[in-house]
């Protein structure tokens, strides 16, 4: 069964499309009045806050709407000139592939070869043809060496590539990638983006791609068009990439997306020195941006340097933070460390610890090791670190390097195989576990992992009731914590909240018992930009109030902006480095803003 698609017609066309889920027309539409076209071979970035209808769009493109989901549809969606109503569901699924964000949820079989062959087996292709096509696509995507591997042995990026291949092998004409890099570490992300570029460059596939992603800088180089959705499911912004970056950048910034930092820096620079900025065109990729300093004089370079610090290195909304009770000299914390490598660094005689004189150590690990029972592999390997009260620490490392395990160990949820952990100089082995739990606020990766109660109020009071401190929680304080979630009734079921609201509920649920230390395990995955900003700002404020925060994340741009120190783990769970934010990023020179910063410093020479 081959579906012939003419090349000269539009791949996708949404005409006044609206959709209401459920059985009642009075419900709020998930998407309303959507109009846009995508030509064959074009690449579209689709972004918007959680709950704005991004998934509904993808379902309408590949037939899940109307064939599998109940609801009311208005308008039409045309795929290659034909209404979705005129396709049967399976034909449409074959033309339009949908790769979701978490590869683990999509894998069905046990081996890579079986997984890639899955679609063709369903289509009853002959065995020889399946074998040939599977090998072809695996070769093309560079995973032919993995074909006979068990899926459980693959890294996150390899799993995502396997899923991608399993769709590509069916020769789709449109491919939707729903936040394909959300669960990937830096290495896996680069691998996937590299292979996507290879796919886009290959004329034989001639794919139209729809990439759902709010971190635009990751994918903007591929794209031709951008479509931004609003909270109410309508279109907020649409146009070609160049048009939006040039003429509607301020509108884009107001949308709930992470704008490409390259364009942001350039645009801010243009605002203060239009003449200098106009010497170069709007940079569309990092290489273009690196050419800009070559055309500037020393004064202009200093301006660009300031803009870069303000845009990418200083925490956002700095003025707001400065009004908080504790006056912070941000330059000391965030900027001087970028200039003076050894100013605040002190190591013990073994060279293991980072410590600054006068700081109080709140957590300390000594030769900490952890091995999962019967695994024979150390997840944490001989780790000795000191964490000071009031630190804001980023925890980084490749997938599988033991970041989550370390957080669990620090929270006393796991017991070390050997070595010790000290909380305020007391060994955790000798501390009452229940009392220690009260000092720790733990945010898990999936917001739903930490929701247990039927109402928001009960959920927030879950911790205090277990700690026997319900009487200490004042009504006003509880109301403030509920406000943090949004304008919601305290009796609402937490599972009915949006994804971002659930994350904010998690924060309220731990703030309520006022823990000393807040540990966060990849809290931003699947969250929209507005939620990420609000979480990180809330944490920043809590840190200024004296809370110690350790956050595990792959988002280096956020870590650069907000953390004070970085712990980097190796793949084998040992410590790679533990250093101040500035020192760490100066040493790891592959982060874009730091590369640009160094280039400017180099150009300025002694005048810096």
């Amino acid at each position, binding site marked *: 069964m081959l579906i012939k698609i003419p090349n000269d017609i539009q791949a996708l066309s949404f005409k006044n499309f609206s959709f209401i889920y459920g059985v009642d027309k009075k419900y709020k539409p998930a998407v309303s009045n959507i109009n846009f076209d995508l030509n064959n071979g074009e690449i579209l970035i689709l972004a918007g806050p959680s709950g704005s209808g991004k998934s509904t769009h993808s379902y309408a493109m590949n037939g*899940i709407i109307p064939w*599998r989901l109940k609801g009311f549809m208005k308008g039409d969606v045309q795929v290659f000139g034909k209404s979705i109503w005129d396709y049967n*569901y*399976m034909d449409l*699924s*074959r033309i339009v592939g*949908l790769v*979701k964000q*978490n590869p*683990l*949820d*999509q894998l*069905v*079989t*046990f081996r890579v*070869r*079986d997984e890639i062959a*899955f*679609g*063709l*087996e*369903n*289509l*009853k292709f*002959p*065995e020889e043809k*399946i*074998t040939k096509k599977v090998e072809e696509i695996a070769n093309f995507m560079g995973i032919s060496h993995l074909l006979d591997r068990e899926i*459980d042995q693959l890294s996150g990026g390899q799993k995502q590539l396997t*899923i991608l291949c*399993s*769709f590509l092998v*069916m020769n789709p004409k449109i491919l939707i990638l729903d936040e394909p890099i959300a669960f990937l570490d830096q290495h896996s992300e680069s691998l996937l983006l590299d292979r996507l570029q290879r796919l886009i460059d290959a004329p034989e596939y001639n794919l139209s791609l729809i990439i759902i992603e709010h971190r635009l800088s990751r994918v903007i180089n591929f794209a031709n068009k951008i479509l931004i959705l609003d909270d109410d499911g309508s279109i907020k912004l649409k146009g070609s990439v160049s048009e939006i970056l040039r003429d509607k950048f301020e509108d884009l910034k107001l949308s709930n997306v992470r704008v490409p930092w390259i364009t942001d820096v350039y645009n801010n620079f243009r605002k203060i020195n239009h003449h200098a900025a106009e010497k170069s065109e709007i940079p569309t990729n990092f290489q273009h941006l690196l050419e800009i300093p070559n055309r500037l004089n020393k004064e202009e370079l200093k301006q660009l340097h300031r803009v870069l610090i303000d845009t990418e290195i200083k925490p956002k909304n700095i003025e707001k933070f400065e009004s908080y009770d504790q006056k912070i000299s941000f330059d000391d914390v965030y900027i001087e460390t970028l200039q003076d490598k050894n100013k605040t660094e002190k190591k013990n005689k073994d060279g293991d610890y980072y410590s600054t004189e006068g700081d109080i150590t709140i957590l300390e690990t000594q030769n900490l090791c952890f091995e*999962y*029972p*019967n695994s024979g592999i150390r997840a944490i390997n001989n780790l000795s670190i000191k964490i000071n009260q009031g630190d804001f620490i980023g925890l980084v490392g490749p997938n599988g390097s033991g970041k989550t395990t370390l957080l*669990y160990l620090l*929270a006393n949820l*796991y*017991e070390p*195989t050997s070595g010790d952990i000290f909380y305020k100089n007391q060994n955790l082995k000798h501390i009452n*576990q*229940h009392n220690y*739990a009260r000092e*720790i606020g*733990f945010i*898990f990766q*999936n917001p*739903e*992992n*930490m929701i*247990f109660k039927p109402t928001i109020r009960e959920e927030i009071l*879950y*911790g205090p009731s*277990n*700690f026997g401190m319900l009487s200490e929680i004042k009504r006003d304080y509880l109301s403030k914590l509920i406000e943090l979630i949004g304008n919601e009734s305290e009796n609402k079921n937490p*599972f009915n909240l949006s994804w971002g609201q659930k994350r904010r509920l998690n924060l309220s*649920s*731990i703030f309520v*018992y006022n823990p000393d230390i807040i540990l966060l395990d990849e809290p931003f995955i699947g969250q929209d930009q507005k939620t990420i900003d609000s979480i990180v700002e809330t944490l920043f404020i809590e840190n200024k109030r004296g809370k110690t925060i350790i956050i595990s994340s792959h988002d280096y741009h956020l870590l650069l902006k907000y953390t004070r120190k970085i712990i980097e783990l190796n793949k084998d769970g040992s410590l790679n480095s533990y250093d101040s934010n500035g020192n760490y990023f100066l040493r790891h020179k592959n982060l874009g803003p730091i590369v640009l910063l160094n280039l400017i410093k180099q150009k300025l020479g002694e005048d810096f």
Partner: protein
Amino acid sequence: MNKNKQLDRKQYLFAYVPGNSIFHKLNPISKLVFLILLTVLVLVVNSILFLAFIFMIIFSLAMLSGIKLSLLFRKLRYIFMILIMSVILNIFFNAIPSEEEIILFYLFGLKFLPIRRLAVYFALKAFFMVLILYTSTIIYTYTVDMRDFVYSLMKLKIPYRYCYALMVGIRYIPLIEQEAKTISLAQRARGFGYERVNTIRKAYNLIFERLIATLIIILRKGYVTSISMENRCFGIYKDRTNLVKIYFKPIDVIFIILCCIIFSLIVLYLLQLLPFPQFPSLYSIYLETF
């Protein structure tokens, strides 16, 4: 409380362990035939001593398939405890108290605690039946890669939709377990579970909260999996191509023939059609001791 105990990834009761034993080399269907024949046999055998004899054979087969004695005991310990309880309960509560029924003896010499012959018989029979079936299932799962098992089912012409439902289910086991563990950690992180669960309310909270949170996450995952499968045209035709081939080797044929012959001989023996002496009954041995 050892917090790490629950992290042992090899604690699954039924988990495949690769190996080179004769049982590992057999096709899952051959082993399934053996399992079915064994089940039928266990249901038709009436002699306790014969059941004990079958258990000894199954035990030896477990050793042959490479299961370490310590591992087997570890896997059997819970069911063993349950069975001991069941034997005791059977003896006291499950017998039909009729005057004709032979009373073996009175427990502690107390007249209101009679130990009846039939009660002991049923209790021991149930004990050995469960033990044999449980041990043989352990051998089966220890030596069968579930992937091969699912494809074998397809080879047996079981509709592939059901086979894939099973395959996804098997894939989900570690995911569900992981989620359940994370949820229990999340409960502990917020102060729940440090005290002993000594009231019904606490037990209800522990189970219900964990169950609901796990269920919701699994339903979401299941939804994404089903979308992903349908997107790859799963279910479009009544049958499908299968790249994975499960072959019958000579060893499988020999094994199945051997199983059938032994099974038939045992049935003939049980029907007293073979010129061998029957197993003595446990009751007769009991009487001879007096």
